[in-house]
Structures are given as C-alpha cells and as structure tokens.
C-alpha cells in the first residue's frame, strides 16, 4: 500500500483562532502554536453505512412530524462532498442541526423568545452516495439574536458536521443563504479572512433544482482535505 499523507488544513483561509470581535474565542483557544505531526497509517475507509442511519432523517420536515407539517418555507439543500482533488467522497456522514423558521433552537439552554414548533426538531443526518451527493429536505431557518454585542443577530444558517474517512478528514461548519443582509455584522462568518473563502459557505439558490409547487433548492458543495502519495511514490 502506498503511503499517503494528508494535505494540511489551509490555515490562511480558515478563521482566526482568537478574534476579539467574536468574544467567546478569547479564552477558549490555545496561545501556543500547534505542533505538526505526521500520522501513522490507519484505515481510511468510511466508518458508516446505510444500515447505521434512518432514511427519514434526511427529511427534517418529516422526522419529528407529530400532527402537521412544520411551519415555514420548505427547502431542499443538496450538494457534493469531494476532496481537494475533486474526487467524490462516498459514505460521508453528514449531521445537520438548525433553528426553526422563527429562529428558535430546541436546545434546552436556549431562551430566545420565539416560538418552538412541535412538529420540527431541526436535526437530520444522511450519508453521501457513490458520487458524493447528499440531499436534505428542511425548513429555512430564521435569524436568531445572541449576546456577542449590542443588537447581534446570526445570519440564517444550518450547522453541518461532516465525517469523511477518519478524524483528520473532519469538518464542522455552517451553511448560509445567498443575499442575507446580516453577513456584514456577523463575527463568526467574518472570522474567515477572505471573501472568496467566505463565499464557499454561502449556499446558492437554484431555480433548476427547485421543485415546482413544493420547495426551493439550495446548492452547498463541501470540500474536505485531500490525501496524496509521498513524493517518493508515483501517483498517476
């Protein structure tokens, strides 16, 4: 087996660790530099298969439906998970969680004065298929207020957790919606230093994928780190 090494996290394009504009970063990130290590070989096969998860959990309008459909704008979020070499990654575990259409999270510690929706939990999961493709059906989340600064509101977003082929290939991020007026006020989004990188977290509305009389579609593609052979070895 050819020895593979992982591309490093691209620190130039990642959010700063400590960023006074996002207050919670100040006491919660290390001050010493990271120590670079190379990992020993380990299996890079996916950890999950279809039998591990319920199919209904890719549809957040259904997986906690009690009596009625949840309130709000129904949307489809879809995309591909690939590595930096554009290779599709199959059987990646995607877990998402979000606020409801009123901007309220169901989490017990959340106190924002907006209504819960008894038919909506706001959590889902799925696996990518052979082509790295995934699709969720959900409700467009509302913006929600937080205490970082005076009149602080998070842009509408969906949290994404992606488990690729092991802990190196791990990503937690947030997906935003095209055209949100709150982008320029949000220190979490703007922790990412350059506009091009920020734009990778903005899902694009797609009229082609929109389903008539049913749901708007948004495209959100995800790129995980790639693996390459060591320079001593040939890679075709």
């Amino acid at each position, binding site marked *: 087996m050819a020895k593979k090494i992982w591309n490093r996290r691209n620190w130039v394009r990642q959010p700063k660790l400590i*960023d006074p504009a996002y207050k919670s970063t100040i006491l919660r*990130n290390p001050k010493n530099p990271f*120590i670079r290590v190379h990992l020993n070989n380990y299996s890079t096969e996916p950890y999950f298969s279809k039998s591990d998860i319920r199919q209904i959990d890719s549809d957040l309008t259904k997986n906690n439906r009690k009596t009625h459909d949840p309130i709000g704008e129904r949307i489809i979020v879809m995309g591909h998970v690939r590595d930096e070499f554009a290779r599709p990654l199959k059987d990646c575990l995607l*877990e998402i*969680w979000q606020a409801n259409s009123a901007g309220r999270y169901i989490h017990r510690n959340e106190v924002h004065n907006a209504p819960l929706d008894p038919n909506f939990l706001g959590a889902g999961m799925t696996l990518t298929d052979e082509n790295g493709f995934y699709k969720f059906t959900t409700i467009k989340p509302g913006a929600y207020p937080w205490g970082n600064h005076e009149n602080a509101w998070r842009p509408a977003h969906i949290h994404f957790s992606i488990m690729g082929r092991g802990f190196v290939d791990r990503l*937690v991020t947030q997906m935003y919606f095209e055209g949100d007026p709150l982008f320029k006020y949000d220190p979490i989004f703007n922790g990412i230093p350059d506009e091009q990188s920020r734009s990778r977290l903005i899902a694009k509305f797609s009229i082609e994928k929109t389903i008539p009389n049913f749901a708007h579609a948004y495209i959100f593609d995800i790129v995980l780190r790639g693996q390459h052979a060591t320079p001593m070895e040939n890679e075709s």
Partner: protein
Amino acid sequence: MKKNILQQTPSQTVGPFFAYGLTSEQYGYDYPSVVSPKMIKGNLKGTRIRLSGRVFDGENNPLNDAVLEIFQADPNGNYGTKTNEGIFGFGRSGTGANLDHTYNFETLKPGSNAKTEAPHLNLTLFARGIQNHLYTRIYFPEDKSLFETDHVLKKLNSSLRQRLTARSTEPGHYVFDIYLQGKNETVFFDV
C-alpha cells in the same frame, strides 16, 4: 504530485446548541445518535476502560458546551475494525449532560500498531468559540516505557508529555483534563 483543484471548505464553530443534533441520546433528546460515548461494540475483546475529564478555559472555568470525539485503534492496534455491531473506534461525548461538566467515554484500551508506538486515543475538541477544532492525544501512564520511542511524544519534553498523559484514578478509570490556555495549556497538534 497532484495539484489541488478545489479549496477546502472553511471551518466554523459548532456553536452552543449542537446537543440535540450531535449528542442527542447522551443529553436525553428523542432522536437517535449514530456516534455515542459508549464505544464498546459487539464481540470485540479487550480491556474495558472509562475515560472522563473536563475542559477549562483561560479563566479556569469548565466548559459546559464542548463536544469531544475519540478516534482510536482497537486493542490489537488496528483502525476501522468491523464488528457485528458496526465499526469500532469512533466515539463522541459532550460536557453539558452532567452538572460537573465532565465528558465521559466507555471504550476498550487501544493497542499500538508499531512496537515503538505508545497506545493512545486521538481526541478532537469542538466548542462555542472554537472556530477550528483542536486535535490532541491521550496517553496512558502505564505505557511510560514507550514514550521515548513514540514518534509524537519523542518530539516533546517530559513536562509536555505529562500534559498528554491521563491520570489513573482507579483500575480501569482514567481522567484527562484539557486546558485551553494558561501554564498547563494542553499540547495541540496540526495533523
């Protein structure tokens, strides 16, 4: 060597409200967890261990909204071992399910996949305020004889090694606290 074609998707904080999505069963939400703090699976044999600890910020307050993941080898030192209940070696625990803000894992002690390597758990940490998840490793005090040859630990002095070594409080129970800042700041890796 191939050139990158696409750019990595940027990371963002896990935020404060991940529990019903990522750690639902541990926190008592009515939604299945596909990754759990109880990592022992099926017919895999080995030494059962419990691991717990807390995560402290720069003012020494424990975080009640962190989530930690373990990625580890099986007792023979192999990753990705299939069992009759799925693949062994990936677990997740939050720090907000208990009043003392501890995380807790039940697993099997890992083996090492080379004679020179000390058994360890790979730990990944996410929390509100952490925009890029943090990587560290947990070693076991009884394996000190391998610390000199372990390819990661040999880069570190004894004080830093100590920070990556769990305490054994009773047989089979290990405690590993994480310090995000300060004089005991945990060693974090760029992997």
